[in-house]
């Protein structure tokens, strides 16, 4: 799976979890750009992404994400090392 595909999958998860069709994630997207993405729903999103890709982030990784691109890179890295 390449980075674009991962970004696509993540968009689907965000749309589904946050119940909002208008969300389109870009690599630069941050929580400030998506209305429903607050600290509460953040954990919900992380758990859903982990389930979907069958991966597990470490606490340090979660805290290190500056934007969606960072997160996608980490997902890609984990998928490749499987």
């Amino acid at each position: 799976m390449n980075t674009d595909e991962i970004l696509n999958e993540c968009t689907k998860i965000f749309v589904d979890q946050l119940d909002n069709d208008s969300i389109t994630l870009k690599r630069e997207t941050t929580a400030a750009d998506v209305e429903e993405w607050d600290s509460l729903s953040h954990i919900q999103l992380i758990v859903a992404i982990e389930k979907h890709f069958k991966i597990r982030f470490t606490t340090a990784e979660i805290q290190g994400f500056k934007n969606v691109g960072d997160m996608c890179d980490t997902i890609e890295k984990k998928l490749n090392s499987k």
Partner: protein
Amino acid sequence: MDFKQIKANLKKDFSGFKTIKVAILADSATQYLTQAIRGMAYEKKLNIEVWEAEYDAIDITVSDADSELYSFKPDFTIIFLSPYKLKKKFYKNGSSSDFAENSVEHLKQISSTVSSHMNTNFLVFNVPDAFDAIFGNFSGKVTSSFSYQQKKMNMELMNWAQNDAAVSLVDLCGLQALHGAMNTFDSRLYINSDVIFNFDFIITVADNLIQVIEAFSGFAKKCLILDLDNTLWGGIIGDDGIDNIQIGDLGIGKAFTEIQLWAKALKERGIILAVCSKNDEANAKEPFEKHPDMVLHTDDIAVFVANWSNKNDNIKYIQSVLNIGFDSMVFIDDNPFERNIVRTYLPDVCVPELPEDPSEYLTYLNKLNLFETNAYTDEDKERTLLYKAEALRNSASLSYTSEVDFLKSLDMVCETKSFNSFTIPRVAQLTQRSNQFNLRTKRYTDEDVKRMNGDHDKYHTFSFTLADKYGSHGLIGMIILEKKDDGDLFVDTWIMSCRVLKRGMEQFMLNEIMEYARKHKIDNIAGEYIETKKNGMVRNHYKSLGFTAKGGLWYGDVNSYQPKTCYIRNSN
């Protein structure tokens, strides 16, 4: 249901649902739990409004008289201490061996502070078991181990709840054991956000909490209806015969023995058992009477129906004999076809989808926790006996040509009393569970009833028992009268058990309160009917007792009242 679906419910329309207010006092992050409770409540057609105290501010919140907690006036107040915070406190304070006592004492202080400001029911979480990796398996021998103190704390909590009617426990420990601690916890959620359950388990906890809350609101299940072939025993009695059905300690028979033990334990607790089976009656009854491995016997079954009619019709019949609501019945049947017929024609009856393999029946049923309750009284233990006596009465009534002759033959005696410490639990239970013969459907807790009963200037209370030659019905009726400023007596509550319909009990009760009013020089008794979905049977209650309507209320004139004829003797 997953968390996302539950959360989506929050945007839906709750109007028309019964509103229940719940406050959460916790020392961990409970935002998800709050969302889950409200979202899950939607599934059960309840509008649960949740107020959350500030994070980890229980003591400050309850000691502040101006706290929103007190203006919110919750029906239920959840007190949820994080097991991780408890553990931290335990080790910080040097592993003391009076930790459990002190912790419960602290909880008692919280509840008594809250109680000094308002009336509420406390829902207190107990503490999940944890494998102690400090002392390991040795911890049981060390009173100052966390494991020992945690278990002791749960004991102390139970002792507290047994002695304080306002306190109910939420068995988090049992729930976590059922689901497995490893499946309920996400250490990263805990470390990052102080959320101590994962999303799946948050839903489970919310569901369980709502079950406890529902038990306070007249939603309790009262009757378990059982199919026979391949539900209570393996095989088909009509085809296989008594020697070949599977029950007992061998093979798959064990699974059916366990189901029967479960049903028997429920019966001992006060759940009425009924049988509904497609069989010839003689065949169906034979194992109950003759098979040595049967746990259930005919005595355990209040209504036994075995014939070839549709199950929905037979359940209707069972309902008419027992006189309880369809929504208080659970029907267990291994056959998907029968389950669906009952679901289609009697949508209020709870029909669990059984697993295909009988060895999984009980695990599945346990998980559903179908028979949550908020009370257990002496009456509960005797319930099947009461309903069996009722069946005898019914058959006797057929042998009399006139109703009056039948009623006279019963030799009925009633004892009328003010509530006292023995009757208060049963009286409160009646207010919570009675739906049909209930004029205003006011639900009261033990504490509420105690308070009203103690306020002699304002309230006068009556409890009624009824016995006849077939046995005792127990406490079957209650009235709470409230003195109004205009000098009238207002009937705040009038409840009667449907077990004693058509015995002249209403007339007897009216005679008693009229007599009381006359003695106290009161001119009028005012009554009110508040309609619900279920109390249609008392729509004309006051009218038929000769009251006159005025401004939405019904008035009975004490001075011109002539005692009604009835065939019930007063034991006093």
